[in-house]
């Protein structure tokens, strides 16, 4: 049993226990013999009842009793059957007295009930007794849900029951949990009185205050409160959050390094050295069903149906970000002519969230493409675009060509009803008085973020980002046990702040030295030395082709797979501890230059990204064992297989892995074999 210290036994106790042990042992042996020989006499049954009273965990005895009941059931005499079942219920009650957490006992009772026996009053009485004995007994709560379903007691009545229980003691997480389950069901089927979520939620906020303001150390009400906030803010229907190209964009394709640019613009991008044009759709949640029927692409360029792919590191068929590649090289294009492409999303049903909600509002994106120079195959020996990450090789950009302040796409976001903002606003007033209470500060931070999320884009109201960043910094000191949690949240919010507008982005945008023209091919977003422990805001970064995240504290790049245009990436001087952490890179088809020097690859025995990366261990992928064995040769397979998993599908020209525990000579020669396109390793020509 939990929480009880173990004490050594006294001599008298030892002999008493020894006798007990012998008695139980003989009971169990006799029982097993009866079971083996299928003896279901009254004597045998009584023996099993005795056994279960002492040891309700003896599961075979419960099986035996069911067999006995089946054996002794008569077809004609329903009275004797009833008494048979009564006997079983009694045995269960006795067993539960010994151990009210016995899985076997509770299941046996369910089995009896499923035969159509017992009165509902009896069961509810039993449950009330257990509630008094231990209000958190999850077996009893599970059994309660079983009984109420069997006897068709309404969710509304059960809701009232949770109020009764909470009234006795608000610190009943089990009751709050049950409340969330019941309300979810009532909302989903739009039951009478529950079709207007807002009224119900407003009442719930008031109701939970009694729990959270009485004792702030008690967690029971806080998680329920967090759930209420989520219910207030969340948008069930999937929506498009951003895309690349954006609506109204002008995309230029340059076949090779050349020619004139048009000033730095996020809307009007230039892609060099490529003949494929990606179209990226970024939704607010994971969806399935993005295909050529649900997303219709119209253009004189396209002759065949397009295949949309979900960007999932798990090889899943649902993803938050989807991409399709238009193969411009195959099309008969006139140089310098502008072609229009129109994308219609969700005009026919089919795009679904994992909760089964359909795509919110049909939308359209139109952009233009122009090929300046024809694509030519790269000359052998040609290096990647960027060959250095040094400060001197970059110069700041001082302005964007566009004047439009908003960077995020102008997609139709349905206007949030006022009550959401009012509810959150109201909650915020309750949390203004902070004292040094960790959970209150954290809740205030979450509420302010929720408020900003709900505020319409064009609202000039100042957002609360600075205030929340400050709260997280304070929380890191107030609750050092969880400081990395607050740090992650801080990083996410900081990134959102930086990427939310052109003004905020500009200080981080630089031109690379060789750029003879001003176009986005040579713009590097430099986010170094920001103490970032986590990456985010990818929906605002789809346009980025070169990214420097060096000198931060990143351990993972979850979500980075959305950045399909990425060709040069610097992750040096971070905290990447495993190759599996680089999983998202496998989906970056354009990646040519990668710097992961000075990390912790090979330093950790535990891999926390293992099951978050598609691999044979997660049963989501077939591993190219044959090729691996050939390349690996005599080297340690266990050390290298993850590196092979990540790199074998990449076409890198530059790679820097120096300064990692795993990067010895053996590894270097292995990786060179895995990457035939590699021209530069650790800053040295091959």
């Amino acid at each position: 049993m939990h929480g009880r210290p173990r004490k050594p036994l006294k001599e008298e106790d030892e002999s008493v226990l020894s006798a007990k042990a012998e008695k139980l042992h003989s009971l169990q042996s006799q029982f097993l013999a009866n079971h083996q020989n299928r003896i279901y006499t009254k004597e045998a049954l009584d023996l099993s009842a005795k056994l279960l009273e002492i040891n309700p965990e003896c599961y075979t005895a419960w099986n035996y009793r069911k067999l006995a009941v089946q054996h002794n059931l008569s077809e004609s005499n329903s009275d004797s059957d009833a008494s048979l079942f009564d006997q079983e219920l009694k045995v269960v009650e006795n067993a539960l007295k010994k151990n009210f957490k016995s899985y076997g006992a509770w299941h046996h009772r369910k089995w009896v009930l499923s035969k159509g026996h017992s009165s509902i009053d009896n069961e509810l009485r039993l449950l009330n007794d257990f509630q008094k004995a231990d209000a958190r007994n999850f077996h009893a709560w599970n059994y309660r849900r079983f009984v109420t379903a069997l006897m068709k007691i309404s969710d509304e009545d059960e809701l009232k029951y949770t109020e009764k229980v909470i009234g006795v003691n608000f610190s009943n997480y089990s009751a709050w949990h049950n409340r969330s389950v019941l309300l979810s069901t009532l909302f989903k089927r739009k039951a009478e009185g529950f079709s207007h979520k807002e009224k119900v939620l407003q009442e719930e906020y008031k109701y939970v205050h009694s729990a959270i303001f009485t004792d702030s150390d008690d967690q029971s009400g806080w998680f329920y409160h967090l759930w209420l906030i989520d219910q207030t803010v969340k948008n069930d229907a999937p929506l498009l959050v951003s895309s690349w190209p954006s609506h109204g964009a002008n995309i230029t394709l340059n076949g090779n390094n050349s020619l004139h640019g048009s000033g730095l613009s996020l809307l009007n991008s230039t892609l060099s050295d490529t003949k494929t044009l990606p179209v990226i759709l970024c939704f607010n949640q994971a969806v399935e069903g993005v295909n050529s029927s649900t997303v219709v692409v119209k253009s004189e360029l396209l002759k065949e149906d397009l295949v949309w792919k979900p960007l999932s590191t798990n090889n899943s068929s649902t993803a938050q970000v989807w991409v399709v590649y238009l193969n411009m090289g195959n099309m008969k294009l006139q140089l310098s002519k502008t072609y229009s492409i129109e994308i219609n999303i969700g005009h026919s049903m089919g795009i679904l969230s994992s909760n089964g909600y359909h795509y919110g509002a049909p939308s359209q994106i139109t952009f233009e493409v122009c090929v300046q120079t024809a694509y030519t195959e790269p000359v052998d020996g040609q290096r990647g675009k960027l060959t250095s990450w040094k400060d001197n090789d970059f110069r700041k950009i001082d302005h964007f060509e566009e004047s439009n302040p908003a960077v995020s796409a102008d997609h139709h976001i349905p206007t949030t009803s006022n009550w959401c903002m009012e509810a959150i606003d109201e909650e915020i007033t309750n949390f203004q008085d902070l004292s040094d209470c960790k959970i209150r500060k954290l809740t205030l931070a979450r509420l302010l973020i929720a408020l900003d999320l709900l505020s319409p884009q064009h609202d000039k109201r100042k957002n609360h980002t600075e205030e929340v960043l400050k709260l997280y910094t304070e929380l890191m000191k107030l609750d050092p046990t969880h400081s990395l949690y607050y740090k992650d949240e801080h990083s996410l919010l900081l990134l959102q702040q930086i990427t939310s507008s052109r003004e905020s982005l500009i200080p981080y945008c630089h031109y690379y030295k060789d750029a003879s023209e001003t176009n986005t091919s040579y713009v590097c977003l430099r986010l170094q030395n920001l103490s970032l422990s986590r990456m985010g805001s990818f929906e605002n970064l789809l346009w980025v082709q070169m990214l420097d995240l060096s000198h931060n504290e990143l351990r993972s790049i979850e979500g980075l797979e959305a950045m399909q245009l990425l060709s040069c990436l610097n992750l040096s001087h971070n905290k990447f501890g495993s190759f599996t952490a680089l999983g998202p890179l496998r989906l970056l088809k354009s990646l040519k230059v990668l710097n992961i020097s000075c990390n912790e690859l090979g330093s950790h025995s535990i891999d926390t990204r293992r099951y978050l990366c598609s691999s044979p261990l997660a049963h989501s992928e077939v591993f190219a064992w044959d090729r691996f064995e050939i390349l690996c040769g005599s080297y340690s397979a266990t050390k290298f297989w993850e590196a092979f998993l990540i790199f074998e599908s990449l076409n890198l020209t530059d790679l820097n892995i120096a300064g990692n525990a795993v990067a010895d000579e053996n590894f270097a020669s292995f990786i060179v074999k895995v990457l035939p396109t590699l021209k530069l390793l650790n800053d040295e020509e091959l």
Partner: protein
Amino acid sequence: MGELVAEKRLRYILSIEKKKDSFESVVMEHLRMNGAYWGLTTLDLLGKLDTVDVDEVVSWIISCHHHDGGFAGNVGHDPHILYTLSAVQVLALFNKLHLIDADKVTNYIVSLQNEDGSFSGDIWGEVDTRFSYIAICCLSILRRLDRINVENAVKYIISCKNMDGGFGCTPGGESHAGQIFCCVGALAITGSLDLVDKDLLGWWLCERQVKSGGLNGRPEKLPDVCYSWWVLSSLIMIDRVHWISKG
């Protein structure tokens, strides 16, 4: 100092194996198969697996094997999915999996999957997400995961997801660290962790740490060292273990 402690642990485990007659031992006779798993893997971690008579253990395990393919907790008891996993795990530990008919064991487990994707513990029909984990883990060891309906199994587990991001034993069941370990483990093995709200669950798991530094299994309950395993390994699988103090 570290050596002394390891020595003590070794002696403790070997002693309980021998003390079959104590009350503690008798009352847990029916789940000896589980005990074998926990005890033997601990010995292996301590590097002392060779102190055990492998043949004796293996022949005892085989004597618990039933015709339907399942394993019992001890000789004379009924087969159950709980002990089937422990048996397979111990045989795998000793590299003796070839001694059993893997297809037969697989068929036993496959027969326990229900239409909604859930798994029963045995023919008597108790459903619990623990059994989902057991089925998936066991078949993964036997390399026959494709014999069950993985999609439905995952769907059922997700239907047990709660408001706090955690998982219970059945749909609507309260979040509990042990159940969470099972559900997260099953989703990990089937490559479905994208269906977990890692931030929400990670935070709930972090909050299991109480003032003394120990971990509890759910809010407002007492800490216990067993929860260190369920909570920490869950945090590791969803890559949020850095959110909890190392102290």
